[in-house]
């Protein structure tokens, strides 16, 4: 039987109408999965905004209060402890410390809830190299002096694959279906990035460095901060669709913002700042663990967990003579404690500082330039490893046609020779709407809707994956990452935010303008040193 076009359309219309009547076409029935939305932070945090925090009923005294138990806070605490100072408390909003590097665990594997890798340390990043040695990530040096990394912590091969035109290809730069013009622009783009990677400014510093404040201040490079990454591509005449997709993907992956919202300096920084070397891996290799950077968090916690006050919300911070008064609300005990401290290291984001620190609260607009991208992260436990046509399951698995960033395989470092089950971590920066709107939408969306959204996205590349799901949990990060919008990194607001306010010192990675482990770690240990010097002199 051969249908004419007209018959076909008529038949389709009938079918569609029938299906719509039955309620299938427009609304596929929501499927049920086992899991929940995690992260109590938003609800607790909103107590600040909505009131409802009782006046202090207890008094306490300590040397230093660290506000926020993410990487910056934990690094500051650990650094103080290493210097023999342990009169401090860490106030943590969540039930456990970790911030963006929080992780979870089930019977199949540990898995990250946010940050999940650290690139090899740049040779000039002494602090990070030292940390890696202390943690056993670097086990020694070869004859040439190159660090030898513990291979169990280096990302196992295969590293990356991209689902494009119905099959998986190796690597994330689109290859399938590209034209010679695309390839030419790729070559141009990557050689330009390589030149930036090698470039030094007139001040002798690398053009793009980590921590980023050690980068050259040469205007030749700094000026990139005034335009967007999209504009940067346009100025170079790079209009290849797959190249634009790739660069946009990178901006969303690293900063949670589209390339139109990302500063070109930040966009280039991603490609041009990594100069890590290893005796036993190439410089593109990254350090990773099943629990992501939660592995580092757990190591930090071994040293400082006794100082952490979990489920405690810093509500008000103000100068008091030569010290600082910190009021925090203990969500579990439902009481507010007033701590008198000699100094505060503030390791929560700036938008929180602007609400909590009295001096900032009274000056308005101190956090206006700081914008944050909301993120949704899901951890999905599967009965079998997701395969698919083409390249093998990899550590990072991205889908070309999706708004999500795909998923990272938490069980990638497993040594099993016949692995079965898997945990995958699915990421999506909610960059399709302005942050505030996207944040409100995300928090108002139910678990079932989120779970179905995640599964539908995965089904693009893995039809039938729903049947394999044992558990699916979601974490919504309302303020997931600072966004390096044009002008932000080298602008005044960030410089101002770095200055201490009385005895309150700032260390959150949003004062770097990009949300990466190295920045948070560097800020944390720098603040610890600053505070201990300050206490010594006062």
């Amino acid at each position, binding site marked *: 039987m051969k249908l004419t076009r007209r018959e076909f359309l008529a038949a389709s219309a009938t079918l569609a109408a029938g299906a719509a009547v039955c309620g299938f076409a427009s609304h596929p029935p929501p499927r049920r999965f086992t899991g929940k939305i995690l992260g109590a932070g938003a609800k607790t945090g909103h107590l600040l905004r909505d009131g409802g925090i009782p006046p202090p009923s207890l008094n306490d005294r300590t040397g230093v209060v660290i506000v926020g138990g993410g990487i910056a806070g934990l690094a500051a605490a650990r650094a103080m402890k290493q210097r023999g100072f342990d009169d401090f408390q860490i106030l943590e909003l969540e039930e456990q410390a970790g911030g963006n590097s929080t992780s979870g665990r089930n019977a199949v594997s540990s898995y990250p809830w946010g940050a999940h890798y650290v690139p090899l340390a740049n040779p000039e990043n002494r602090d990070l190299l030292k940390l890696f040695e202390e943690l056993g990530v670097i086990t020694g040096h070869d004859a040439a002096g190159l660090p030898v990394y513990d*291979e169990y912590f280096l990302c196992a091969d295969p590293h990356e694959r991209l689902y494009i035109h119905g099959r998986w290809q190796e690597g994330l730069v689109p290859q399938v279906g590209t034209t010679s013009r695309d390839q030419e622009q790729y070559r141009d783009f990557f050689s330009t990035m390589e030149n930036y990677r090698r470039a030094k400014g007139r001040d002798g510093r690398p053009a793009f460095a980590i921590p980023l404040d050690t980068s050259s201040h040469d205007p030749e490079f700094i000026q990139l901060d005034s335009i967007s990454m999209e504009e940067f591509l346009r100025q170079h005449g790079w209009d290849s669709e797959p190249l634009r997709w790739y660069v946009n993907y990178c901006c969303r992956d690293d900063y949670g913002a589209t390339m139109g919202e990302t500063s070109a300096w930040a966009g280039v920084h991603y490609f041009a700042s990594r100069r890590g070397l290893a005796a*036993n891996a190439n410089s593109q290799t990254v350090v990773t663990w099943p629990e992501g950077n939660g592995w580092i968090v757990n190591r930090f916690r071994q040293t400082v967990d006794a100082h952490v006050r979990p489920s405690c919300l810093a509500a008000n911070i103000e100068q008091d003579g030569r010290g600082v008064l910190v009021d925090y609300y203990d969500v579990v005990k439902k009481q507010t404690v007033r701590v008198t401290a000699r100094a505060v290291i503030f390791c929560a984001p700036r938008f929180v500082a602007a609400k909590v620190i009295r001096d900032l609260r009274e000056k308005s607009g101190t956090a206006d330039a700081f914008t944050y991208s909301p993120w949704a992260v899901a951890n999905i436990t599967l009965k079998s490893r997701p395969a698919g046509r083409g390249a093998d399951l990899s550590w990072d698995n991205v889908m070309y046609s999706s708004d999500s960033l795909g998923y990272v395989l938490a069980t990638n470092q497993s040594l099993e*020779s016949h692995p079965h089950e898997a945990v995958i971590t699915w990421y999506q920066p909610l960059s399709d709407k302005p942050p505030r709107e996207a944040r409100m939408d995300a928090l108002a969306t139910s678990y079932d809707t989120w779970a179905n959204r995640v599964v539908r996205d995965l089904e693009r590349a893995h039809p039938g994956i729903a049947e394999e799901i044992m558990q699916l949990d979601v974490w919504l990060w309302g303020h997931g990452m600072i966004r390096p919008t044009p002008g932000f990194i080298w602008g005044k607001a960030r410089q101002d935010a770095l200055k201490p306010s009385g005895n309150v010192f700032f260390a959150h990675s949003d004062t770097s303008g990009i949300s990466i482990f190295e920045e948070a770690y560097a800020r944390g240990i720098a603040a610890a040193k600053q505070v201990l010097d300050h206490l010594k002199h006062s």
Partner: protein
Amino acid sequence: METLLLISVFVIATCGLVYELIAGTMASYLLGDSVTQFSTVIGSYLFAMGIGAWLSKHISRNLVAVFIQVELLIGLFGGASAILLFAAFEHVASFRLLLYTVVTIIGVLVGLEIPLLMRILKDRFEFKDLVSRIFTFDYVGALVASLLFPLILVPRLGLVQSALLFGILNILVALLTLHLFSREIPWVRLMRGTAFGLLIAMTLAFAYSERLVSFSESSVYPDPILYARSSPYQRIVLTKSEHDLRLYLNGNLQFSSRDEYRYHEGLVHPGLAAVHNPRDVLVLGGGDGLALREILKYPSVQTITLVDLDAEMTRLFSTQPVLTQLNGGSLSSPKVKIISQDAFIWLRNNRRHFDFIAADFPDPSNYSIGKLYTTSFFRLVHDALAPDGVFVVQCTSPLIARKSFWCINRTLQEERFFTAPYHVYVPSFGEWGFIIGTTHPYMQPEQFPSGLRFMSLDTAQNIFHFPDDMKMVETEVNRLTNQALVRYFESEWGGYAH
């Protein structure tokens, strides 16, 4: 009517012989020693037929009805016989019991057939014609069966479907008889219902028998499948022909019983005979117990630890007679301790030292297996070697996968091993490679255990020499982070059906 009944004689004669051949073949596949198995199966089958013939005199009423019931029962038991026996293969203790029970039941029923039919037909023919025709059709049927069985049934349908097909024929004979004698017999409807029910069940079983014993696989393997099962880790398939027993894991040939001694003597002896007074041995992989068989030829060896992930493999190779005949029951040796765990994970937690370590893993055809050939894994092996210990690893074919082979060599050297690469010819595999890794330069053995079929001091002179087409090539080091080996392996074996 008479003609139709005589055709029935032909059909049931064919069926009867086919069941006998199926039972005999199954027994020789599963228990080995085909002369004994065929002989005893045929003997008991004929004896059971005698019992059936003797019993027939006790049936005096409703001859046709009884005949129909007998046909239905033969159809059921005969048709299901191969499925039953395959299923019982895993429980070998009861296999013989089941085998002879099935043979006896079918034999008794088949023994009833001809006497009953003769009595049914006795008034329609003269005695001399009756005897002559019935036995003519009977013997012609037997000839047809004996030709069909090896030439068409086993190669095209396999045992399970052949049995089911002839079960269906028996049931059709029952239906035909029902049709012809419908007025003369009681409970026609009940019997017709039963017959149709059985017919449908058998037909369905025939259609789905691919799933029952994964019949579709049989086209993949050159020989009949003896055993096929998916363990949690792999698809285990054993095939058997007259002179050859083969093991396939996930479709890849692991050994052929005709030449596996070359592989396993080659794997074990050049390394183990070079160890002075070896006491503690570790085998990684090798759940077939064949490397163990070779290791047990060294009386000084006191403990052998075998780490193989798949408990199904070690269970199969320690209980199946055809397999324990091959490995000499090595898995049951009191010196052997079997650990069903992933080798990498076990080795990471291991604190013991071994005088000899043999890695007999599958080829590095995927990223998960490829991890067992990385610097990280070889470092763990190095740590587990006694000071003068020797390590040997099977390394795929240096002829077909030259880069893969030398990549493993390069990777061992990266982990401070002195290496001694060598190769042996295994007909069913081709030119096969192994690499010895030691912490001091390797010294060739001065003697080998007695009773070897392949390895000798003379043979050992040649195996370390690599002709030009297998000579060393420069390769990358295989690491967890780059899996260079899997990539070489894929490109080199990609052109072969591997």
